[in-house]
């Protein structure tokens, strides 16, 4: 079984990990559905193998209480 992260890259370069998925088909299906959201039109997505360091480890920009949107 594959282990794949889907990362979302915002226009400003910020990377958020969407989740952990278990097949390329599953990951690509999620990406297709996210791309259909108008507010995400300018985001890019990547599928990366879930090895150490593959997911986003960006520190919070405004601290832990940053709003999730």
């Amino acid at each position, binding site marked *: *079984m594959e*282990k794949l*992260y889907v990362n979302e890259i915002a226009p400003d370069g910020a*990377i*958020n*990990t*969407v*989740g*952990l998925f*278990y*097949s390329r088909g*599953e990951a690509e299906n*999620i990406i297709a*559905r*996210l791309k259909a*959201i108008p*507010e*995400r039109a300018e985001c890019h997505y990547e599928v990366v193998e879930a090895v*150490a*360091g593959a*997911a*986003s*480890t*960006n*520190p*919070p*920009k*405004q*601290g*832990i*209480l*940053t*709003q*999730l*949107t």
Partner: protein
Amino acid sequence: MRGTTPRREQGMADPVLASMVHALGLETAPHYTAATPKIQAYRDSWVKLAKFRDGPVNPQRLEVADPAEMAKQIKAKAMDLGAHLVGICRLQPHMIDLGEDVPHEFVIAACVAEDYEKVVHGANAVEEEAMRTYAKCTEIATELAAHVRNLGFPARAHHNGGSEVQAIPIFYQVGFGELGRHGSLINEKYGASFRPGFVTTDLPLAEDKPREFGVQDFCMNCNVCQLNCPGDAIPKEHVMTRGIKRWLIDLEKCYPYSRLRDEYCHLCVDVCPYNVKSHPETYKAFMKERKQVGYKTPKSW
């Protein structure tokens, strides 16, 4: 409002679980077929209440001059119905399942705490308690939604019998606590030992705010849940999603212990040190038992 957060399919609809079950030559996960009559009755109860999630709205609408007072009354109502934690926030797209449309402005979270004392009585006792609280949350959400509709405002209950909302982002926003390493939200009084029900509504309500009390920093160094996970499914590394640390549970490692055996597994939540404040003696007794079996393997296995 359309949702933006993917929801993993549950049960046999999850392709990961389905492939593991079928690889064993089985039709369904052993854990589901091993339910006691009591547990099955709890599960049946939220299925039965699903059709009451929504309903007609009273054409006579209550005038709400003070959303703060209204929020106070709604919280008191939820507590009267049996909730231990009640919080309110404005609904946002990331709180809704990707692709779903929830046409409401606010969400009320009403949670019931599990009786932590059950941990020393074994996995079946823990599971019955978990299902009991899920069933109670379903009742509370259903009655609270009906109460709000009777005030003249649309309202929909979200619970195990049907839901379009995401628990963790809502818990965070209403100030219940912070996300822990085990993937559940940690509250300083109840740890992660509580279950939710939600009501989305247009009733004007004052909002609660997120609260921070050091959980994410604590989880960076604690590792107790990771050490006790029999499947080694809890990772050392975290990822970041919009400023929040998330430790993504490996389901391929979790399911053999949580779904492919008859017995329930809730160990990551049970061993969390955030349980110690409210249940010091029970926690110590339980962890002594865990230590005696070398952490990873429970006594009964």
